[in-house]
């Protein structure tokens, strides 16, 4: 069953077309990766799908809810971890999670349940009392993802989740994302080819707002005769 169906999605900023007639479908439970160089349109696509930006043309349906005519319905079923960590800096990890529970209107019992569940799932138990501003980049990313998950979304958007992290923190975060696979639909943008190779079920490669190629990592390698995704990416984008 389709979780995301994108049809002719277009976003223009003055003279620049950031996303150009994008067509795409993502199946339920799939981890889909959007790749592309800077300015390819990945983040703009995520912004439109998460109702942060309105498309000039086209539409997208998330679990059947239109981003154009039913943004309120879309917002109820999505979670977003933006490119910037987007946490409340002077609040503790626990308070950040409770804040998200409060914003979802959860009861006290549900708040406690969600707190226990996600602090354990994301390994945040040891830093619950720490203020977010005191956390390292890796922990802030974990918190950011936990904040997006607290509302029990059906679709999770991860915009460059490991940007700026060291090798160890990145590997740990990959484990977190792997553990979520199959439980919900995820769309991830990244600059790191090894990340897409390690995590994604399928990837889409964007350039100048358009989708250049779409398929599994193996399919893209086969299509370009490349040994690694990075080579396949360069071959496709350089054309």
């Amino acid at each position, binding site marked *: 069953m389709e979780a995301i169906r994108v049809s002719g999605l277009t976003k223009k900023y003055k003279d620049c077309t950031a996303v150009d007639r994008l067509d795409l479908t993502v199946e339920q439970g799939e981890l889909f990766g959007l790749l592309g160089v800077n300015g390819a349109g990945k983040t703009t696509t995520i912004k439109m799908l*998460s*109702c*942060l930006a309105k498309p000039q043309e086209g539409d997208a349906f998330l679990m059947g809810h239109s981003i154009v005519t039913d943004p*309120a319905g879309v*917002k*109820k079923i*999505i*979670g*977003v*971890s*933006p*490119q*910037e*960590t*987007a*946490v*409340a*800096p*002077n*609040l503790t990890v626990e*308070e950040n999670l*409770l*804040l998200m*529970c*409060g*914003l*979802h*209107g959860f009861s006290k019992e549900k708040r406690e349940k969600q707190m226990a569940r996600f602090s354990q799932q994301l390994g945040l138990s040891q830093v619950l009392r720490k*203020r977010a501003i005191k956390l390292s980049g890796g922990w802030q990313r974990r918190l950011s993802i936990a*904040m*997006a998950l607290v*509302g029990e979304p059906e679709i999770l958007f991860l915009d460059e989740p490991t940007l700026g992290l060291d090798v160890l923190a990145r590997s740990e975060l990959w484990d977190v994302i792997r553990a979520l696979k199959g439980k919900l639909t995820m769309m991830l943008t990244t600059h790191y080819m090894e990340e897409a190779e390690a995590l994604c079920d399928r990837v889409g490669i964007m350039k100048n707002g358009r989708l250049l190629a779409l398929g599994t990592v193996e399919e893209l390698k086969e299509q370009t005769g490349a040994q690694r995704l990075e080579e396949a990416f360069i071959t496709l984008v350089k054309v």
Partner: protein
Amino acid sequence: MKTWALSKRVAKEILRDPLTVGFGVGFPVILLFLLSAIQANIPVDLFAIETLAPGMAVFGFSFVTLFSATLLAKDRESAFLQRLYTMPLRATDFIISYTLPILPIALAQSLVCYLAAVLLGLPVTVSLLAAVLFLLPAALLFTAFGLLFGSVLTVKQAGGICGALFTNLTAWLSGIWFDLELVGGVFQKTADLLPFVHAVELERAVLKGNYAAAFPHFWWVTAYAAVVFLLAVYLFLRQMKK
């Protein structure tokens, strides 16, 4: 419940920032003590405690504008607001949350200022309590300025414009430091058209128990607070749609 959760977060972010609280509460009190010390040596009517304290209470609100504008600008720049915009929240949830928790903080700040003034000889009367209550329109006005600046400025701009320009302008144009009649001309007319001097005069009149003199200033400040608040809401919604 959603508004309450977001309001609590706004209050915590502000109260846990020692710099803003130190400035907001500490600076007006230090000035109060300093100017009272000058007054003790060289008596100046303007620095008599019953004239000075209302001015300082209002002046302290300019720091409320600074820290509310900075918080909102930070939330915009750090993508924290973007995260919240992807959630099923209404525009009113945001506006109330960035306004409502600021008001008690502002009133608590003025209470500290008046308590310091009591230590310096301001008599404790019913009018003192009334003076705190009559600060509400000014508190709303300065909070609205915070929402307005925070909606359009970057963190750096908010620090510069609200921290330096706005605090100085409100001080100069409010008749706290010098008698506006001594300057006269366009300066005094401009100050009279703006709400700051009226906020101070309102407080001075209430503190004296002269409500007849207070109400023209009260309506002036209230009208300004309403207009600035509506403008701030418009600008906030505009950046939200962006």
